[in-house]
C-alpha cells in the first residue's frame, strides 16, 4: 500500500477536482475544480520519474543518479497550456455574465428555458 501512496494522493486530488466540477454550479468554482484536476495529472506524471537518492536532472560531474527529466518537460508544457485554457474559460465566464447577468449554471438554464417558452408561445 505504501509504495502506491503517490498514486493514492493523485487519485484523491483527481476525485476532489472532478467532484467540484460536477457538483458546483458556479462557473468560476468549476474552473478552479478543473485546475485541481489538472494539478493531479502533474503529480501522476512527475511521481513515477522520481528515484530514491536521485537529484534534479541538472548534470554535474559529482552526481550520477538523476530523476527522470522527460515527465518534467511534458508537464512544463502542460502547465502553460493549462493557464492559457483557464484564461479562455474565465473570458467565457465574463462574457456569460455580460449576457445573462449571472454565472450560476441553474439560473442560466432557467433563463434559457424562460426564453424558449416565450418564443414558443
Amino acid at each position, binding site marked *: 500500500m505504501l509504495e502506491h501512496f503517490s498514486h493514492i494522493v493523485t487519485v484523491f486530488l483527481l476525485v476532489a477536482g472532478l467532484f467540484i466540477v460536477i457538483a458546483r454550479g458556479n462557473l468560476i468554482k468549476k474552473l*478552479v475544480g478543473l485546475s485541481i484536476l489538472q*494539478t493531479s495529472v502533474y503529480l501522476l506524471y512527475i511521481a513515477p520519474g*522520481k528515484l*530514491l537518492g536521485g537529484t534534479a536532472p541538472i548534470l554535474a560531474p559529482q552526481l550520477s543518479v538523476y530523476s*527522470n527529466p*522527460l515527465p518534467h518537460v511534458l508537464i512544463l508544457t502542460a502547465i502553460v497550456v493549462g493557464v492559457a485554457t483557464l*484564461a479562455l474559460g474565465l473570458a467565457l465566464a465574463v462574457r456569460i455574465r455580460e449576457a445573462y447577468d449571472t454565472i450560476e449554471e441553474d439560473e442560466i438554464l432557467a433563463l434559457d428555458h424562460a426564453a424558449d417558452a416565450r418564443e414558443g408561445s
Partner: protein
Amino acid sequence: MALTVLMLMRVRNLFAVIVLFGIYSFLMATVLVALDAVDVAMTEAAVGAGVSTVLLLGALHLCKSREAKPAHRPWLPLAVALSTGLVLVYGAMGLPDFADPLSPIHAHVVPRYLQNEVQVPNVVTAVLASFRGYDTLGETTVVFTAGAGIIALLRRRKKVENDRKDRV
C-alpha cells in the same frame, strides 16, 4: 494539501476559494521540489500560484463574489466521483511501485537524454528546446489560439457597450 482541497470544496465565498487555490498551488510546488522537479515547481509557483490567481481575481472583479447555495444535496456527483476514484485506485495498484528504478519509464529514451549530447547541463532545458522542440511549437500555437480567443471574446463586449452608448 488535502485540507486545503477539502476547504475549497466547502467554502462559498469565491474570494476565499481563489486565495485557497493560490495556497494549494504553492503546496503543489513544494511537493514538486520534493520530487526533484525543480523546473516544474518554479513554473507552477510562477504560473499556477501567480498568473492563475491574478486571472481569477480579475474575473472575480467582473462577477459576483458569492456562490449560490445548491438547490439539492450533491449525492449523484459524489457517487460518480467516488466510483471513478475507486476504479482509479484499483488501476493504480497495477502500476510500478514508487521510485522503482526498473520501471519502464526509466528504460526507453531517458538514458540517452542524460548523456549530455547538446552540451546543456540542465537536461530539462535540453529536452524542451532541442529533443522535443516541436512540443514547444505546439504549445506556442495553443497559447496563441487561446490569446486570440480571449481577444475575440472581450473585444466583442466592448463593441456591444459602444452600441449601447450610441443608442442612449
